[in-house]
């Protein structure tokens, strides 16, 4: 109560003064206990939000710009389109990345008109183009000669436009002025709820970020669309080669929630790439790339006054947009009938996954799942401890526990990765037995102590590294509020055995559960494609592992 009051008073004063000072505590001054951070919030008249944390140890500033949109708003047929948009808004603006924008205009007009014709043909031919096959075959996009001709014209037009382009313009300017950014020329990430751009610049050059990102917010020109279509598709194909990030994880998500977009792939489906069109993406761009849907977190050698001046100079000139559509920010329906078991029938490293749906960030019970994850995973967490000393227990099991962090539907996955298929039934029992322990407060105090230490270290790492902190502030803003961040971290650290028990009893129930089994030698009588089987077998014998 006292802590709340101390936080609340400066908050109220700050509101009256027009800024909202943070929790006091001194920047990183104390080395023990849980310490706050100082965040200054700046709101412009158009709704643009800037969060500033001063850290003068190094003359650099980490900037993390968050837009509140993501895969969760995508409808069927356009999965992955937000990620695609992330790429195509990084192709320059009306003033950057072009040698002659006036010369581009007629080409851009013709591109728009040609694409409109393509869409019209598509709609007209919708019965002929209906996909009736069962087995997907590469990039077998449905088409007609007329559509091919229009697509060819689009390629030609983009080639024409290329002569006026300066490729990688924004990225090159960032690098020239000393940015530490993604290795990717699109220094951004898109996920279920956000599109985030992050750049770390020398403090002397921070104005560059304001100049480029404010311009991108309103004046982006979606150049090189067709090339980007294939570039982004290539990223998706990369992910799908790894089962953890590809079809396996999609399958698990698919049975977790009934057709809720929180469980759809942010990367997208191959088929949908054929349907993306510029016009629809420009609609999304105009709806969501508005100052009142954006938060810029700045952590580093910058004072709030300087940040305000730059924000007003650049972002302040942008008109406030209509409030971006909330769309599917709703609770996911549970799968009817309760517990679901998924047996994956392609060869994979043996594992058991026990999944439960848990509340989103902003819900008061969400933090305790971070505690439960830290408590159960690792070589000395509760899962491993329950096996220790047991005769015949499998060796070298890798226990993981991973809660997602979203403002809406979350899950927690308890994972046991085994060496052998034969160990899986016992591991499934182990996972369920530990869940039972959590529900009955059979929790080793030393394990809980270790878990808390790991959580403290993780938070201290976040708050002491400017890029991590900038990202964390922005992410919490899109999930709930940046002000939630510290209370979230405090709550998970102070979660008691009773809190854990309460959460386990409420959420770790059969009707809220998915069990997933993957085997090196799946249960099917027919062996799946021999190549995968061969490569798995080869890997087992060549990795220098124990027999």
């Amino acid at each position, binding site marked *: 109560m006292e802590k709340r009051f101390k936080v609340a008073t400066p908050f109220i004063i700050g509101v009256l003064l027009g800024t909202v000072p943070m929790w006091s505590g001194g920047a*990183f*001054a104390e*080395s*023990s206990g849980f310490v706050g951070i100082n965040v200054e919030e700046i709101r412009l008249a158009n709704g643009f939000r800037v969060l500033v944390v001063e850290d003068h*140890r190094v003359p650099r500033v980490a900037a993390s710009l968050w837009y509140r949109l993501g895969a969760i708003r995508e409808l069927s047929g356009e999965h992955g389109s937000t990620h695609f948009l992330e790429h195509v808004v990084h192709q320059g603006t*009306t*003033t950057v990345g072009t040698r002659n924008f006036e010369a581009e205009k007629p080409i*851009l*007009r013709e591109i*728009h008109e040609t694409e409109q014709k393509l869409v019209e043909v598509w709609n007209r031919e919708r019965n002929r183009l209906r996909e009736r096959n069962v087995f997907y075959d590469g*990039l077998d996009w449905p088409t007609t000669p007329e559509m091919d001709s229009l697509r060819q014209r689009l390629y030609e037009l983009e080639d024409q436009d*290329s002569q006026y382009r300066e*490729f990688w313009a924004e990225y*090159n300017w960032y690098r*020239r*002025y000393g940015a*530490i950014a993604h290795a*990717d*020329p699109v220094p951004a990430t898109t996920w279920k709820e956000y599109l985030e751009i992050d750049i770390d610049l*020398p403090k002397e*050059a921070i104005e*560059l970020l304001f100049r480029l990102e*404010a*311009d991108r917010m*309103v004046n982006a020109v979606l150049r090189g669309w067709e*090339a*980007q279509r*294939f*570039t982004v598709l*290539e990223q998706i*194909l*990369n992910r799908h*080669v*790894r089962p953890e990030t590809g079809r396996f994880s999609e399958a698990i998500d698919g049975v977790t929630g009934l057709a809720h977009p929180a469980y759809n792939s942010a990367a997208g489906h191959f088929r949908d790439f054929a349907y993306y069109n510029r*016009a629809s993406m420009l*609609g999304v*761009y*105009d709806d969501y790339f508005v100052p009142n849907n954006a938060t810029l977190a700045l952590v580093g050698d910058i004072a709030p006054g300087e940040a305000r001046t730059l924000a007003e100079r*650049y972002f302040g000139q*942008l*008109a406030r947009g209509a409030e971006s559509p909330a769309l599917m920010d709703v609770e996911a329906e549970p799968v009817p009938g309760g517990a679901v078991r998924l047996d994956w029938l392609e060869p994979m490293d043996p594992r058991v996954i026990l999944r439960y749906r848990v509340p989103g960030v902003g819900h008061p019970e969400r933090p305790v799942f971070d505690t439960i994850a830290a408590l159960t995973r*690792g*070589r000395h967490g509760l899962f491993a401890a329950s096996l220790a000393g047991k005769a015949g227990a499998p060796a070298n099991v890798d226990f993981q526990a991973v809660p997602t962090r979203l403002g809406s539907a979350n899950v927690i996955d308890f994972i046991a990765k085994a060496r052998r298929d034969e160990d899986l039934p016992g591991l499934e029992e182990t996972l369920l037995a530990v869940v039972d322990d959590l529900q009955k407060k059979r929790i080793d105090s030393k394990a809980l102590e*270790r878990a808390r*230490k*790991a*959580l*403290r*270290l993780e938070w*201290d*790492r976040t708050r*002491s590294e400017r890029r991590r902190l900038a990202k964390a502030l922005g992410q919490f803003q899109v999930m709930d509020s940046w002000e939630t961040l510290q209370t979230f971290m405090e709550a998970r650290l102070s979660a008691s055995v009773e809190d854990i028990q309460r959460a386990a009893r409420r959420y770790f129930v059969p009707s809220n559960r998915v069990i997933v089994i993957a085997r090196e030698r799946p249960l099917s009588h027919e062996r799946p*494609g021999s*190549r995968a089987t061969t*490569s798995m077998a*080869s890997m087992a014998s*060549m990795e*220098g*592992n*124990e027999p």
Partner: protein
Amino acid sequence: MKMEREKIYRALVPMAALTLATALSLAGCGGGSNGEEEILPGRSRPLLEHDWPHPRDFEFAPSTFTPPDAAGALVNTTTGLRAYIIPDASDPLVRITAAAPLGRLYEQSGEAGASRLLTELLTRHGPADPNRPLSLRLESLGTALQMEEDLDVTRISVEVLAEDWQEGLAVLIDVLRRPDFENSVLRHYRTGPGYSTPTSSASGSGFQPKVELERILAGYPLAPADPGLSVTGQALRALAGRTLGPNRVVLGVGGNVPRAEVEAALNKLSEGWDSTEEPLRVAELTGEARVENKLHTIDVPSLEGWIATGRPVGPVPESERAAVAVMAHILGTRLNIAVREIRGLANRAVFVLPDTASGAGLWHVKTGGRTEAVAPLVKFCWEEIEKMHQPSDPITEDEIEQAKGALVSGSWQAALDGARQASATYAVETVRRGALDALLQWPEAVRAVTVQQVKEVAQKYLSAEEMVTVVVGPIDKIREARHPRWPVDLSALESTPTS
């Protein structure tokens, strides 16, 4: 009457304005130059006309970044163990890094694969102590070991809360001092393929085409040891004896630590740790290559098409290093624009220079894509490399300045960003190159690079004719596939002669 006319006029004016606005918006691109709001086709929001400076017109003050004082940070213990201690009272954490001269280039005859196994034993199994296994000590600190192995240096690091720095230091030194050679892992260990399976992206060192390229061009030790080899305990002990002594390892300790106490702790923890006098011999990478075919294919049907194109290069004179780095940055940019931005053939093309003390190693491009994209990827990568090799290639001042900014204000500052990072970088650099001069003088060296110097190193080292390519993937499908816009036949590329 007058009022009625007024009314009509007032009604007509807004209608005219509305008509005009409608006409302008329907035109799609009109109006901007007349002061009207301009809306691009497909958009609903108008563009923002502004007078903001173009990025090229910015004149920012020079960066005030200064790396932590290395000379002042260095301590030498009585046992010969050296450490860079960089305190930062505002940091809630401490990072402790151990850099050791451990890697394939330090393996001697009969020791192939030993450095990899040794690193695994150190970091996964730790000292033999059933009462206090390494894993429990680390989990009690809420942390884990991080390990990175290069050809000529291995770094092991741990991050702990500031209050736990003593135990963190003790754990790391214990790991180095008391490797468990009796572990049963040793008996069953066999060297692996040298790459990650499956290869899912072009990032990381475990990239199959690159490893296969190393094997084809030069073999071990440029390439990993052949798969399936065992490593004897004797080999392991010999390597450890040479590389893990206190006079060989260098530590970095950065964060919220009291320097004097750390120094005292180091002296105490290293008591009785014997130095080694056995000479450290580093295998020489000469840059010679066995080149028979320019393009090699390896059939792995479950993958996409992954590509590595490169050549081994011998030691690079110090005087050329900065120009080489600038050249590599420019080439990397050009490759990506050619294959990704213009043609959408790949997600990324990465040009990699080796990170070794001498600069020797494999220079290579890593990329990959769909079956129909593989052959054009190979072709366009070769073209960009060859283009840069030509004396007539116009390397621009813009390209040079971009590279310099990225190398100095970007990656160099990143390597020395804060106490934790700087202490680790100093430790690694000291083990690798014996001193920090080159590191600390890097910005000056890079800023002095000229267009002419970049051209010279490009002509000296970059020649598509001398590059060999390895393609890993579903080779039959790759051969059959033709890209609809850039149809290139892989077989035609295979018949291209080597130099």
